[in-house]
C-alpha cells in the first residue's frame, strides 16, 4: 500500500505508559518509565473517556509531553496513547551487527561464495579453464652437455608449483634460445620432467637436427598441458641431451630461455 507523504524508514509502534489524570492539560509521556517524544500529534492515537481525540485540535505534542486542548479532571480517563510509527534514523550500524540474513542478495551464502555488485552471491575463485597462478624460471647461462640421456646440465629452468586442487592442470611452456648441437646431423633434444617423469608425448619438447645449412642453434619451444593429479608441491625441470651421443647439445648460445608453468582450473 502506498504512503501519503514521506514513507517511514522504520516503524516503531509503542503503547505508552498509563497516565493518571488530574486538573491539568499537560502530561508527561513515558514508555517503560522513560520519557518518550512522538514525532507529531498525527503519529498518535489518543483515547480519552472512550473517545478518540483529534490530533492537533484536541491535543498537541510538545517534546515528551501531551497537551490537551483543555484541562482534564481527576475523573477523566486516558484510555491509551498509541504511537503509530516513529520515523527513526538508524544512523551507522555498530560494528559486527549486520548479519548476512539482513541482506536481500540472492544466491547461496556460504564459505565458497562472495557478494557481487549485482546483489548476487556467486561462487568464489576461478572457473574451469581460468588461470590460478603462474610461476616462471629463466636461465641465460650457456649450458652444454654430451650426455646421451636427459640431464639438467645445471640449468636453472626449474619451477616449483603447488596446485590448489588435484583436478587442476598445469600448462608447461618451454621456450629455448640458441638451442642445438655443435655439429650437423646430430640431434639436440630438450624436454621437461615432472619429478622423474618426462612429460613430453614423444621426442621431448624440442628436437633440433640441422641436416645442412643455416645455424646449428635455433629458437625452439613447445607446451604440454600436464595433469599432475596432486595438491603437493611438484617440480618441473628442463633437461636436454645429445640423443646420438658423441657430440654436444647446447642451449642459451646467446640469449635466454624460460620455463613457465600456469595452473589451470580443472
Amino acid at each position, binding site marked *: 500500500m502506498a504512503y501519503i507523504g514521506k514513507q517511514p524508514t522504520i516503524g516503531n509502534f509503542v503503547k505508552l505508559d498509563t497516565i493518571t489524570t488530574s486538573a491539568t492539560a499537560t502530561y508527561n509521556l513515558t514508555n517503560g518509565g522513560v520519557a518518550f517524544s512522538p514525532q507529531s500529534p498525527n503519529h498518535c492515537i489518543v483515547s480519552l473517556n472512550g473517545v478518540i481525540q483529534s490530533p492537533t485540535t484536541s491535543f498537541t505534542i510538545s517534546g515528551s509531553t501531551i497537551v490537551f486542548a483543555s484541562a482534564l479532571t481527576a475523573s477523566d480517563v486516558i484510555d491509551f496513547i498509541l504511537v503509530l510509527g516513529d520515523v527513526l534514523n538508524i544512523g551507522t550500524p555498530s560494528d559486527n551487527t549486520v548479519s548476512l540474513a539482513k541482506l536481500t542478495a540472492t544466491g547461496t551464502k556460504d564459505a565458497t561464495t562472495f557478494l557481487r555488485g549485482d546483489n548476487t552471491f556467486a561462487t568464489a575463485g576461478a572457473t574451469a579453464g581460468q588461470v590460478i597462478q603462474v610461476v616462471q624460471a629463466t636461465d641465460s*647461462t650457456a*649450458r*652444454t*652437455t*654430451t*650426455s646421451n*640421456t636427459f640431464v639438467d*646440465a645445471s640449468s636453472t629452468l626449474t619451477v616449483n608449483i603447488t596446485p590448489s586442487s588435484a583436478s587442476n592442470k598445469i600448462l608447461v611452456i618451454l621456450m629455448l634460445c640458441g638451442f642445438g648441437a655443435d655439429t650437423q646431423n646430430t640431434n639436440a633434444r630438450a624436454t621437461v620432467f615432472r619429478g622423474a617423469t618426462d612429460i613430453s608425448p614423444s621426442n621431448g619438447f624440442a628436437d633440433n637436427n640441422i641436416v645442412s645449412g643455416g645455424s646449428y642453434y635455433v629458437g625452439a619451444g613447445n607446451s604440454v598441458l600436464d595433469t599432475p593429479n596432486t595438491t603437493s608441491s611438484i617440480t618441473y625441470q628442463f633437461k636436454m641431451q645429445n640423443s646420438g651421443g658423441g657430440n*654436444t647439445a647446447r642451449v642459451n648460445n646467446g640469449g635466454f630461455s624460460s620455463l613457465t608453468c600456469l595452473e589451470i582450473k580443472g
Partner: protein
Amino acid sequence: MKIYICTAILAIKKDAQVSCSGEDINTLEWHDGNPTNITNQQILAKQSELQALEDVISKRIKEYGSIAEQIEFITENGLDAWQSKVQAIKNKYPKENN
C-alpha cells in the same frame, strides 16, 4: 669458430658424458663418472690445441676464397696454378704437426 670445452672433451674421449655451464671448466658435471680421469689441464690443453688448428683452417679458408672465386681462378690460370696457390697458402698458415 670457437672450440668449446665439451668439444675438447669429446676429442679426448669421444663417448664422454659430461655437462658444462657458461664455458667454465669448474662447472663440469660428469654423468659417466669420468672413468679415465680426464683432468681440467688436459681439457684446456686440448681446447687450445684444437682452437689453434681451427684458427689455421679458418685463415686458409678465407684466403682460398669462395667456390666461385676458386673456379674462376682455375678457369683463368689452370689447375697447376691453383695447386701452387693452395700450397703457398698452406705454407703461410702451417699446422703445428703438418
